């Protein structure tokens, strides 16, 4: 079982990340990746860039803890999380989550769980830049709702 956590300004290669998840890994049949990109439309206006800051030290701890929770719930042999910070132009990669597992359902659920918890708990803050203005992104209620799925499964398991 391995966990790799990186918070960096540099871009990353999904191909390389995928290669690392697969190399010398004969027991896992399933690899799921999620990549988040800077997209053009958010709340109406055209986004030209994002600016991302984080809480150094705390962020890495939180991401590791989220990955460990995912490994407790699913059989995920390898987890890689990369989150970029700084100034990111339209179309650039923001975040990568890659997981491997013996079975595809665990891989899909594990990756989705990590993204849902990252969105709600990891200490990143995002500012959108438009042509003539900029503003801090507001927390989305839909991200909070996304967590309820995992929490109700937890309660079911306790019953």
């Amino acid at each position, binding site marked *: 079982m391995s966990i790799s956590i990186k918070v960096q300004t540099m871009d990353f290669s999904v191909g390389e990340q995928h290669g690392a998840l697969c190399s010398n890994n004969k027991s896992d049949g399933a690899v799921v990746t999620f990549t988040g990109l800077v997209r053009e439309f958010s709340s109406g206006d055209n986004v030209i860039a994002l600016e991302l800051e984080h809480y150094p030290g705390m962020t890495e701890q939180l991401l590791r803890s989220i990955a460990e929770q995912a490994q407790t719930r699913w059989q995920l042999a390898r987890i890689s999380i990369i989150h970029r910070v700084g100034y990111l132009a339209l179309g650039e990669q923001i*975040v990568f989550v890659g997981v491997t597992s013996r079975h595809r359902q665990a891989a899909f659920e594990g990756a989705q769980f990590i993204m849902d918890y990252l969105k709600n708990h*990891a*200490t990143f803050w995002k500012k959108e830049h438009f042509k003539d203005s900029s503003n801090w992104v507001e927390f989305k209620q839909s991200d909070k709702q996304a967590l309820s799925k995992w929490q109700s499964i937890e309660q079911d398991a306790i019953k």
Partner: protein
Amino acid sequence: MAAGSETNLNNTNAASGHVNVLFFGQLKERLKCDKLTVDIAYSLSIKSFKHMLVEQNPHWQAWLEERDVLCALNQTMSSSDELVKAGDELAFFPPVTGG
């Protein structure tokens, strides 16, 4: 209040000493401050600590006390009842928006 010094997460248990305070995201921008060092003579709740900051910077009230500000004590999410001690790192920030 002095300019922030290096972060020290070790709680020295000294009755008096300084607390490193950090601000992030929109809060940092509104307060025009990313970090500061506060000397305290005794432990106090985060709620009281916030109140103290507002007394010293009245224009911070609208942002620190009246908005949905989260708080981490020594890099762990904390409620406003928890005690701040000398040597602690205390961070205030808005809800997170990464990913």
